[in-house]
């Protein structure tokens, strides 16, 4: 991936792309996930990079994209707050998964 901490992506060229937007992907775009056929899914996933910098870059972009579209709208409404609540719920679900699994009632599945 092209992301390096504290630096612009290597593909970013201000003369072409204009002012830098942290939520935008400046590399060569692949087929969107929604348009991928089931058969091509393996190839599509193999083209993704899972290095720490790439993952961090994706999280970074996703956050700024979400922030720009939802949180920083002029009148955002309740939806972004609901997203944060749902995300923290999911986070605590994962964190407390082990503790809560002691409360299971069934033994055979």
């Amino acid at each position, binding site marked *: 991936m092209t992301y390096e901490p504290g630096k*612009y992506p290597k593909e970013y060229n201000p003369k072409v792309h*204009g*002012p830098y937007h942290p939520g935008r992907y400046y590399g060569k775009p692949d087929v969107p996930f929604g348009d991928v056929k089931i058969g091509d899914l393996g190839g599509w996933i193999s083209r993704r990079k899972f290095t720490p910098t790439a993952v961090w870059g994706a999280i970074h972009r996703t956050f700024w994209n979400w922030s720009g579209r939802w949180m*920083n709208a002029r009148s*955002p409404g309740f939806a972004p707050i609901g997203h944060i609540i749902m995300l923290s719920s999911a986070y605590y679900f994962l964190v407390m998964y082990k503790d809560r699994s002691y409360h299971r009632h069934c033994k055979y599945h």
Partner: protein
Amino acid sequence: MLPALKSGVLRSILHGQGAFRAIAVAPIRAGSTGGSAEYIPPKTYTKEERIEQWDYVNSVYFGPERDLKNFPNPSQPDQAPPVRMGIVPASWFEFFYPKTGVTGPYLFAGGLSLWMLSKEVMVIDHYFWEFPSFWGAVWFVNYKFGSQIKKYFSDQLQLKQDIIFTRPINAMKGAAQETIAKCERLIEETEVAKHLYLAKKEGVELQLEAAYRQRLLTAFQEVKKRLDYALEKENVKRRYEQEHMVNWIVSSVTKSITAQQEKESIQSCIKTLKNLSAKQAAVL
């Protein structure tokens, strides 16, 4: 960042422009360098330098290579994107629609929840009830007070916009209108001044004319007075001379007439009268 630095994009930041000014020119604290630090004032720019920098940045960001179609300038949206059921983005439903139809996403979410409950991935313990009770409370608040809360926030937004933008710009527009009206009034007044000058000039010319005529009259009267005096003096002199001459001649003649002459003349007069009366009688 290095290529950007090399290409000079961040020149403005490094020179202390914008948000990074505080970092770029922050005075070094006395403690960190042993108390010998000096205050470095922020760099000031002339208007020409600023214009040059503006042009430079414009040439970088909006040059001929700029791809505005695929990479438009980011802008702040008015509203968050459309949602369903309060918080779920509508785009997720659109993602499911061509693959599974309308019920797909609901089936997916319901099926996932059922599977998690069935396999006890999600255990129904005392923590579990926090989730539905919280969202139930959210639903209740939205149902009861949603419109009020929405109105409050939209009013606040409107008020903020009024305070930050609308009122100051209206005040500035009002001030500008006032200035324009004053200037127009001034222009009108200067136009009036032209006519006023002409009128005053005419008045002064009239006064000058009157004064001129007055002086002419005075001069005429004075000259006439002197001429009259001279004439009267001449007349008096001539009359006196004449009288004197007449008196002198009469007295001389009177002196020269003797008694004999007087008697003769009376005799001739009587004679003439007699002739005349004879003639008169003959005629009658």
